[in-house]
């Protein structure tokens, strides 16, 4: 919507075309038939030029202009049975808000979105829409291409950005104080949503955060070029305006035991949303060599500790030149693209299945490719090789082919014998997922966790754990998932907490 960096993007160019089209559309609007709507071309997302953006932290996707948003919104068929809503973990009234966008009623559109989703500016940017709402979109189905579905995520982002940039974000109303206290552990997507929903009911809410900055994975994990931190800041500001308290640099389970929050500090309910924990490694030889990093570490240094700002940051950044990233998810894409921006000469994604099995969001794969990240699919390292100083010099890589589907239905990678080769690298970033964080479970004996250390729920309807008054949600329950799923869990837990406190 806003013109950020028009010199290096196709924003103006696309907007001019859209402005021309939208005039035509406005005259036709009341008479548009389904056939006409299906004929409207999907609106491309204006983006920064790949060569330009690969050297800086600016947001890659610029966002729709008003004209583009109106045209895209007119592609929606307003289906009687909106399958898109079934695909959304928080069931946003998608046809409802899109209809408002099509008529230029953006304030009304954002109001509808916010009835169910609390972080639209964030979800519009980071949700895997092609696997959720847009997957079931009738337009995409009719045109036999999920990429031609109505761009629901982009429209969601447009509405949220419109509101933020216009400065009309409304602070949700807070009911009179109930005298009840709720502790929210972790300030990631699940925690922020719980805080907002519980605070609205008039309860006193304190968010505890281990780091010095709020936002959890949205701060330390997802890079600026994909999710500008000013957007996260805005969400925090709204919570502040609602009267939510924040306690940073405070680790429940260490700085204070969870039990003490209940027994000594008078909290009536606790929500645990501490997110993913210990990064997983491959378990291959050489993984502790200097130059092998968990993507978590690499991204935290770059994002939270601002290592990309070489002149100001005290946190050193490893001078990666030839980089291999292990894994094919969003974190792998983020790490690969960050490495490029920090000056790597070559970056390879190593993934043992094929391109179509990559778990990452399609747009991230596309952006990574445009920026020059090389995809080495059907490959997997068996060993990382070091030099005499204990530093990475190469990887021994095996080749794979796809075999029979596994229990999850994904084709199983089968190693091809006698085809391994040496790949010269100086940096290996491991992005194959996370285990669970042990800090709370270690010091809260009556909190039940599963074999993997994830917190087990006693009641999945309310996200209540085995411990009375203690709720949990997000990655600490689900294992590694997405922002929107964490948010969905948060909403359920908040409803559970509000119900408990109303009793």
């Amino acid at each position, binding site marked *: 919507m806003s013109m950020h960096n028009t010199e290096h993007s196709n924003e103006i160019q696309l907007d001019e075309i859209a402005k021309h089209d939208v005039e035509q559309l406005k005259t036709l609007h009341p008479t548009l038939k389904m056939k006409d709507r299906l004929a409207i071309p999907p609106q491309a997302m204006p983006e920064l030029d790949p060569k330009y953006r690969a050297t800086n932290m600016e947001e890659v996707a610029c966002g729709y202009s008003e004209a583009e948003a109106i045209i895209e919104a007119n592609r929606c068929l307003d289906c009687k049975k909106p399958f898109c809503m079934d695909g959304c973990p928080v069931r946003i009234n998608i046809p409802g808000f899109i209809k408002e966008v099509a008529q230029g009623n953006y304030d009304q559109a954002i109001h509808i979105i916010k009835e169910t989703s609390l972080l639209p500016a964030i979800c519009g940017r980071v949700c895997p829409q092609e696997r959720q709402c847009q997957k079931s979109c009738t337009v995409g189905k009719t045109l036999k291409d999920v990429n031609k579905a109505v761009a629901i995520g982009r429209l969601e982002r447009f509405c949220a950005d419109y509101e933020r940039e216009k400065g009309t974000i409304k602070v949700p109303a807070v009911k009179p104080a109930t005298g009840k206290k709720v502790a929210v552990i972790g300030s990631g997507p699940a925690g922020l949503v719980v805080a907002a929903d519980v605070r609205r009911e008039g309860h006193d809410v304190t968010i505890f955060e281990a780091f010095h900055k709020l936002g959890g994975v949205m701060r330390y994990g997802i890079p600026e070029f994909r999710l500008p931190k000013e957007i996260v800041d805005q969400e925090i500001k709204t919570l502040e305006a609602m009267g939510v308290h924040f306690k940073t640099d405070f680790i429940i389970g260490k*700085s204070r035991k969870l039990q003490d929050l209940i027994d000594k500090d008078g909290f009536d309910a606790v929500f645990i949303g501490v997110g993913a924990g210990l*990064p997983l490694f491959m378990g291959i030889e050489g993984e502790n060599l200097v130059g092998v990093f968990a993507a978590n570490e690499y991204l935290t240094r770059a994002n939270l500790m601002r290592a990309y700002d070489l002149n100001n940051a005290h946190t*050193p950044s490893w001078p990666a030149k030839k980089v291999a990233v292990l894994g094919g998810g969003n974190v792998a894409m983020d790490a690969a693209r960050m490495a490029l921006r920090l000056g790597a000469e070559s970056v390879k994604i190593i993934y043992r299945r094929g391109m179509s099995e990559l778990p990452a969001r399609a747009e991230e794969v596309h952006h990574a490719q445009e920026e020059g990240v090389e995809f080495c699919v059907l490959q997997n390292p068996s060993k990382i090789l070091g030099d005499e100083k204990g530093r990475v010099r190469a990887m021994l890589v095996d080749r794979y082919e796809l075999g029979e589907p596994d229990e999850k239905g994904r084709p199983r990678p089968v190693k091809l014998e006698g085809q391994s080769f040496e790949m010269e690298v100086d940096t290996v970033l491991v992005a194959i997922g996370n285990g669970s964080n042990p800090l709370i479970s270690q010091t809260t004996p009556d909190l039940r966790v599963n074999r993997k250390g994830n917190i087990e729920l006693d009641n999945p309807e309310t996200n209540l754990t085995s411990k009375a008054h203690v709720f949990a949600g997000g990655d600490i329950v689900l294992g590694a998932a997405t922002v929107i799923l964490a948010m969905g869990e948060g909403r359920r837990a908040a409803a559970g907490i509000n119900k408990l406190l109303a009793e």
Partner: protein
Amino acid sequence: MAKILFKQQLSADVFLIRVHAPHIAEERLAGQFIILQIDLEFGERIPLTIADADTQEGSITLIFQAVGRTTRLLSHLETGDDIPVLVGPLGKPTHIEKYGHVVCVSGGVGTAPMHPIAQALKKAGNRVSIIMGARHKELLFWEDKMQAIADENFIITTDDGSAGRKALVTEPLKELCESADKPDLVIAIGPSIMMKFCAKTTEPFHVPTLVSLNTIMVDGTGMCGCCRVNVGGKVKFACVDGPEFDGHLVDWDNLMHRMSTYREIEKDHLCNMERMALEKEAEGK
């Protein structure tokens, strides 16, 4: 944010600060550490082991050697100044029980984290021997405090003989292992190279040996994986599984390589900092 309540220079580049942190003072146990940051926006995060705590004052004591960027900046802060980020206590506390004869070996600033551990071991009914080592006399501190804990032997060594015995800490350690009063447990805290050789010294005598690792860390809660070490062929995270490990099982060469990850980069950083400081000074004149 934590206010510095007291500051004292212990030797050429070793400093003691007492910091207001009532929650940490209340929760901390011997062997645990904190993470601090000297600048909210751009600071790096470094771990420091807690040397002491005073629940009445609501303070913890930290002792550090000004060697890296952050510790140098920290040494420039004075009483009344704030440390923008201080979080803890982190890591597993030392397992304290009655072992019998325990030998505490500390090198350099390692005496600071050793102090509360030696104290707790003594309180648990152990007979405690102390070996304190440093390169030279100027780098020793808290000899009196440590001597007060020692039941049996109290041995000081320096590399140049300027105080105590002219020896490395491993010499008296070996003698104790060979003596009739063989230790039931050895704890070694100090530079990696010292801990490595303490572990090598006790290994042939089958004396259980704990070491406290001071690896590079970012979050200190297990999220980043930066502090991982090979212990007995398994990957462990010093921040949540440690910082104490069986010294006989630690892969010391890998540990020392990993500790050096950013050494060259930091050297450049420091050179730049000094250059900028000199330039500023020149401007001032």
